[in-house]
């Protein structure tokens, strides 16, 4: 899932303080699962903002709605009939949802209510960690199913570097060394000899370096 974290209320207040009719829009997908931008978080943020502005003596209308997704036209359309009632929207979706809504409702300010962090997994309740950077060409088959791009601080394709200590990364002793994981897994799979195959230089043009990316599927396109 896409993992996000709530923005501090103070930062959101600063962004919306000049508006009077605000819609807080949650997203029922990833950000609900990572407890940053679902229905519950929408209610909490709206309540906090209502109290803040009330206390400031400002008369502000704050409404709440949570959509199934904010990265699909059909769900975003659900607010078309009400969007004109507001002079700003706080979207608690990931950066994708915020932007997609801004494209659709071009004349309404759409403000982010979360900080979008990474693509990751729920390690345990309350702990999410990164697994993928969407580099556009997956090499997990060659690295024992552990990604050196997302899990090595230097994204080394031929790691580990000399800073790997007792299974941990040089930048943080609480961070597992991705290459230690790769080696452990290759060993488990009986493929440790593959370690000595030199990984070729990566083509980064399928990654961010190649500019904004697009997947076009003619077979499913209408």
């Amino acid at each position, binding site marked *: 899932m896409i993992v996000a974290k709530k923005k501090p209320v103070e930062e959101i207040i600063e962004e919306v303080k000049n508006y009077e009719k605000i819609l807080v829009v949650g997203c029922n997908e990833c950000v609900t699962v990572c407890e940053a931008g679902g229905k519950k978080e929408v209610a909490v943020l709206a309540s906090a903002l209502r109290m803040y502005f009330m206390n400031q003596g400002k008369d502000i209308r704050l409404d709440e709605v949570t959509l199934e997704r904010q990265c699909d036209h059909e769900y975003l359309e659900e607010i078309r009939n009400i969007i004109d009632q507001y002079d700003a929207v706080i979207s608690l979706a990931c950066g994708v949802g915020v932007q997609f809504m801004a494209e659709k409702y071009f004349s309404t300010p759409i403000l982010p209510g979360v900080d979008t962090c990474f693509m990751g997994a729920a390690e345990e309740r309350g702990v999410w960690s990164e697994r993928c950077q969407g580099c556009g060409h997956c090499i997990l088959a060659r690295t024992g199913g552990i990604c050196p791009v997302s899990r090595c601080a*230097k994204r080394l394709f031929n790691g580990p570097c000399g800073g790997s200590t007792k299974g941990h990364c040089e930048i943080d002793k609480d961070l597992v060394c991705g290459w230690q994981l790769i080696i452990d897994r290759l060993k488990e799979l009986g493929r440790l000899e593959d370690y000595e195959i030199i990984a070729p230089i990566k083509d980064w043009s399928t990654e961010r370096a190649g500019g904004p990316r697009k997947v076009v599927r003619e077979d499913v396109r209408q």
Partner: protein
Amino acid sequence: MKTNTPSKLEKILKAGHMAVTSECGPPRGSDPEAITKKAEMIKNHVDAINITDNQTSVTRLCSLAACIRLKLMGLEPVLQMVVRDRNRIALQSDILGAASFDIYNILCLSGDHQQFGDNPQGQNVFDIDSMQLIQMVRLMRDEGKFLGGDDIERPPRMFVGAAANPFADPFEIRVPRLAKKIAAGAEFIQTQCIYNLDKFELWLKQARDRGLHERVFILAGVTPFKSAGMAKYMKNRVPGMDVPDEVVKRMSGVPKEKQAEEGIKICVESIQRLKEVEGVSGFHIMAIEWEEKVPEIVERAGLYPRPSVED
């Protein structure tokens, strides 16, 4: 004697001499004397001088310019190059720049993570890794090609080195990793500072078992402790460093004013022991901000005078 480059370091190693290299860290400013003074101190006692490349990610005068300073003094620089700060365009470009000044040695490194330096909020590059940098320099030198496939006019002639840390984890891949660097094209290796001699010798034995010592020149890295505090710091704070308790104890066991001498003594003893180990082709003495002690260490370790080789 067949050499691949005009490198003096390569000639010395191939002639079967114990090589001695040292390093100078460039200044955090633009004063050329900061480099030339350090180089003057050690020039008669070493065969080549490494210039570090923004070590520990602290911004400094660039390695290439400092190497050119050494070259202008008639000395033999080893250009250290990390892949942290430059993409493949900049790396190739700097290699050509170095080649234009006839810099004949390069040490290919990943580089410490920027978090350790003065710009922890900076972006890192890591377009290619150190292994691939080795391959790239060899491609440029041996085939006269850019990474993109085009021909290079007057290709670089560089003796290609890599680093090895026998003490990083996991230990079981330390020798395979060395093998991998050799397969990538490394011709000489400069190791991490060695304090745990037993572990180093075990690593080297495993390398010998695979015949790796015959395919690469291994220069054992040593760094003298200035104080017991430095020993403790290296033990506890520097990632991938293995300083055994007895070494720390030995440093702490002498009075403060004699600790520097004890540090030199340990360093000299290490060299003397490792000189006898099969597979050690020389020493890389990293006297961090203590370059003036390098001649003394070289002399006391019996590595002086340095051999001369014909150009």
